[in-house]
């Protein structure tokens, strides 16, 4: 509190004005931005976080291991698979379970479907922030076919809870690859429309090009991850740097751009949508046959549940899952989510709950970017920069 009073008194010569943006919107979401302005120029901007803090880490300490799966999905609703996957990878390292290859591919499939619709979400929000409501409507509409695909695969639209220790919860339906191919062709065609309406639109380019430039050195120094880092010319992607699931077998490129401005961050996302489509096609082509649930847990199922699993390819949990105990130790896993690197760290003392649980979300790392990028820019550039970061307050506050 005292800090705020100080700021106001420092500008008592009357030159600077303190401007509060949010938390009740101008596209700020659940966050307040305190901007100090000199006329139309922002001198400094301090993001005030924590409006949607939900104490995920502390709640996790009183939840059982399986119950944490839906919990870690909650902070970032547009990108639930990344959190789900990172948590389960960390837990599997503790438990010493290796999922079968088909499960690895199904995980990759869902992660990429999720990445595309997460990027559409970011593009849509960015569009409406700079005043292009068509881009917003289009992007949110075009998320829908992908959400429908994910729903066919998992049974839920957003909070999939699909990835469990030892595998995934169900196999894909037999006609799923055809449906995916149709949706991918649709998205391909639509991306051309986006290109005409949005990417090459002179209004959009005037708003985004050269705005909020993040230099390569600064991006590394500030610990930025994900598309925001790659837009500054650093080819770092966890899928390549520390491969997990089926990514070692998949051929894809890391999209980078050199400019580091808002437009580059936007174009990296568009490029990643194209790469994700490439990955999905490869995953469907290379998908091996076989079980989707680890042998270790399959053996614990009673005969009638084994039979059900063989017939329907829907995993029934063994009773041990209700009170899963992880051996004492610690483990860490990282995953490339739609917005950047998700890191999950678990300390177990051998009980039914983690002793300590840590989740590092990409949005939290990107929060420092506001302060860094919004300096000596126009007030109207704040939403243009904000949107280009694909920042999601609940994910940062956790």
């Amino acid at each position, binding site marked *: 509190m005292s800090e705020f009073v100080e700021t106001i008194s420092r500008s008592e010569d009357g030159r600077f004005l303190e401007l509060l943006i949010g938390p009740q919107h101008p596209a700020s979401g659940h966050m307040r931005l305190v901007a100090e302005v000199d006329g139309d120029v922002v001198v400094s901007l301090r993001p005030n976080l924590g409006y949607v803090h939900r104490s995920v880490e502390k709640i996790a300490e009183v*939840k*059982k291991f*399986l*119950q*944490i*799966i*839906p*919990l870690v999905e909650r902070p970032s609703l547009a990108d639930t698979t990344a959190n789900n996957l990172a948590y389960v990878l960390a837990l599997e390292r503790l438990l010493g379970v290796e999922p079968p290859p088909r499960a690895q591919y199904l995980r990759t499939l869902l992660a990429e479907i999720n990445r595309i619709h997460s990027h559409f979400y970011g593009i849509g929000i960015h569009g409406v922030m700079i005043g292009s409501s*068509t881009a917003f409507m289009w992007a949110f*509409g*075009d998320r*829908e*076919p992908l959400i*429908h*695909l994910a*729903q*066919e695969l*998992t*049974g*839920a639209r957003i*909070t999939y*809870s699909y990835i469990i220790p030892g595998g995934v*919860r*169900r196999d894909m*339906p037999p006609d799923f690859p055809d*449906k*995916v191919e*149709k*949706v991918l*062709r*649709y998205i391909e*065609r*639509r991306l051309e*429309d986006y290109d*005409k*309406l*949005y990417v*090459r*639109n*002179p*209004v959009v380019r005037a708003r985004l090009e050269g705005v909020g430039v993040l230099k390569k050195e600064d991006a590394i120094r500030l610990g930025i991850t994900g598309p925001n880092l790659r837009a500054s010319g650093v080819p770092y992607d966890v899928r390549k740097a520390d491969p997990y699931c089926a990514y070692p077998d998949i051929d894809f490129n890391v999209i980078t751009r050199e400019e580091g401005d808002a437009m580059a961050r936007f174009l990296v996302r568009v490029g990643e949508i194209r790469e994700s489509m490439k990955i999905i096609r490869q995953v469907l082509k290379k998908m091996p046959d076989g079980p989707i649930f680890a042998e270790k847990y399959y053996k614990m199922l*009673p005969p*009638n*549940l084994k039979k*059900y699993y063989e017939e329907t390819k*829907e*995993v*029934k*949990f063994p*009773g041990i*899952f*209700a*009170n899963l105990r992880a051996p004492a130790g610690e483990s860490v896993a990282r995953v490339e989510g739609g917005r950047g690197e998700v890191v999950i760290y678990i300390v177990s003392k051998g009980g039914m709950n983690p002793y300590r649980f840590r989740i590092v979300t990409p949005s939290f790392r990107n929060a420092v970017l506001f302060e860094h990028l919004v300096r000596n820019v126009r007030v109207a550039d704040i939403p243009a920069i904000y949107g280009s970061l694909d920042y999601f307050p609940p994910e940062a506050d956790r």
Partner: protein
Amino acid sequence: MAVERVFDHLRAIATGAKYLFLKPRLTLMYPDEVEDLPRGYRGMITYNHETCISCSLCAMVCPADAIKMYLPKEVPEGEKRPKRYPGINYTRCIFCGFCVSICPTFSLQHSTIHDVSFYTFEEQIFRPEEFAKGPPKPQYDKEPVKVRVIPDEERGLRYERV
């Protein structure tokens, strides 16, 4: 350069205008049209009291404490340790389906019902007796048209009458 920009403007407007003449594409006209959800959709939960063995795994695995084990309202004479049965609180349920996945006797199953509203908090708590009667039916003003959602190359999603 300037000429190019004029063309870019025109191209953007033309692209938007192209979609003026197409019918609404992705919007499902809910509640006049309702999606015919496939098997495996994680909707409200049905409970079969006959096959339940009172193992309480569902209550143990529930991440939101929505499922609790209830004692029967009237305990039969001479029963020292009456069995407990699950009831559900839909104010807490997050539809993760862990209870359905862990139920060893298939007593808990997903229905495709998801669009139900309640007037009070208490109505959403289903004790085992009410839970066994199944989830409430959604109330529509008039009988909705059931449509199947089909991914489509041209339109993204297409809705076909069932």
